[in-house]
């Protein structure tokens, strides 16, 4: 698709729905930056999309009636957090000062970033998140523990450790039913503010999903789908934090993963 000077409504819609390729996303980004009316239209589309999700999410938080479970030979499960806690029992120690570790890694790294870390434009911070994801994905092929500050052996320790550093309650979604297992997390910085990035790996494929939680001074923004450097990404900002999900897997995978996390957050 070729974007003209001013994107039409169908293009804006595809932009908000994460259906454009990166070149077109960049073109729409530029058009939005130059045209406040266009930016307002995008905000309207994003807000209504977020409102739709909020309006219909109730069944995700309700117990499934027995009459639906029984024919499938299932019973009501335990709540989300209890399931999460039950699944991860062992403990692992923290691995040191993360900012220093990150700096040392970059100073000594022989891995090349796929593109310049410092990009221009409003999406800088998002590009940084995408870069960190891609860096991990490349490194993970050799040693997945290399870039993880805290491993996956003890989820409650992992959550507590990052909760302290982010000064907020961090609860990680259990994505096993979606085929992803937690690999660990690390501290990073997004726009000079503390952030944590967690990685999940597909059990039967090379796909990786990352979840980034960062403090932010930017205003709230509704659930936004976009693409950066070959990654499908979804992010939203609320109450001083930004949440970013990235993956090389399909858009539907990302949507489900982000929904699972959002569902868990609402229960906390």
């Amino acid at each position, binding site marked *: 698709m070729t974007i003209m000077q001013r994107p039409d409504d169908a293009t804006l819609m595809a932009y908000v729905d994460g259906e454009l390729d990166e070149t077109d996303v960049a073109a729409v980004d530029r058009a939005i930056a130059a045209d406040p009316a266009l930016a307002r239209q995008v905000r309207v589309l994003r*807000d*209504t*999309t977020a409102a739709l999700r909020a309006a*219909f999410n109730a069944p995700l938080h*309700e117990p499934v009636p027995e009459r639906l479970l029984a024919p*499938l030979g299932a019973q009501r499960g335990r709540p989300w957090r209890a399931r999460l806690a039950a699944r991860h029992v062992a403990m692992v120690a923290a691995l040191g000062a993360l900012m220093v570790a990150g700096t040392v890694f970059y100073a000594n790294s022989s891995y090349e970033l796929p593109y310049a870390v410092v990009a221009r434009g409003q999406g800088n911070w998002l590009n940084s998140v995408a870069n960190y994801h891609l860096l991990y994905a490349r490194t993970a092929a050799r040693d997945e523990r290399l870039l993880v500050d805290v491993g996956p052996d003890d989820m409650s320790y992992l959550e507590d450790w990052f909760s302290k550093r982010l000064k907020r309650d961090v609860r990680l979604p259990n994505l096993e039913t979606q085929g992803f297992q937690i690999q660990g997390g690390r501290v990073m910085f997004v726009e000079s503010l503390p952030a944590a990035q967690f990685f999940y790996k597909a059990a039967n494929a090379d796909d990786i999903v990352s979840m980034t939680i960062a403090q932010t001074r930017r205003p709230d923004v509704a659930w936004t789908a976009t693409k950066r450097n070959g990654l499908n990404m979804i992010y939203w900002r609320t109450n001083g934090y930004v949440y970013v999900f990235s993956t090389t897997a399909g*858009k539907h995978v990302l949507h489900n993963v982000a929904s699972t996390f959002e569902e868990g957050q609402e229960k906390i």
Partner: protein
Amino acid sequence: MTAVNRSAAENVAFRRQVGRCFLDALFRSQLVALLPRLRRFARGLTGSADRADNLVQASCERALARVEQWTPGTRLDSWMFRIVRTIWIDELRARAVRDRVHEQENLGERIFDGVRHMEARLTVEAVREAVAHLSPEQREILLLIAVEGVSYKEAAEIMDVPIGTVMSRLARARAALLKQLERRRDAEKVVRLSR
């Protein structure tokens, strides 16, 4: 020789039976995990919790009866969404209430025509009411794309229509939703002023 052949045949039958059991167990476990999303989709379509659960129940029954049609490793959610919508459309047809919306494959659809400002905070109730006033096709496409997060291509497969139809239908659904929300906002203003 006959005994050997029968034994081999029995082995094949046994292996098939084990395979079916495995497939059945896998299918059931994945279907259970999918139930909350199916209920969400069905509730959005029907606008009622009870009707939605009836619809999901009927869909699960049909899916169990046709489990051999599902290929492990493929998208169970898309397959189930297709079943849910098929049963729902059948029900609507039976009740003869299905809207007949004239389709025009016009990708230049204006979403924002008539919408002055939508800066106000959207309430969950207002959105549900607005969606309830949309046609079944518009509800369906909004639920699939905006709520369930399926891609345009997947939505086209689920609804068995070309991707262009998905885009035009989605644009019309969004335009109709915005107008409904705008109308409600204006109505609220009138009510406030008349007090």
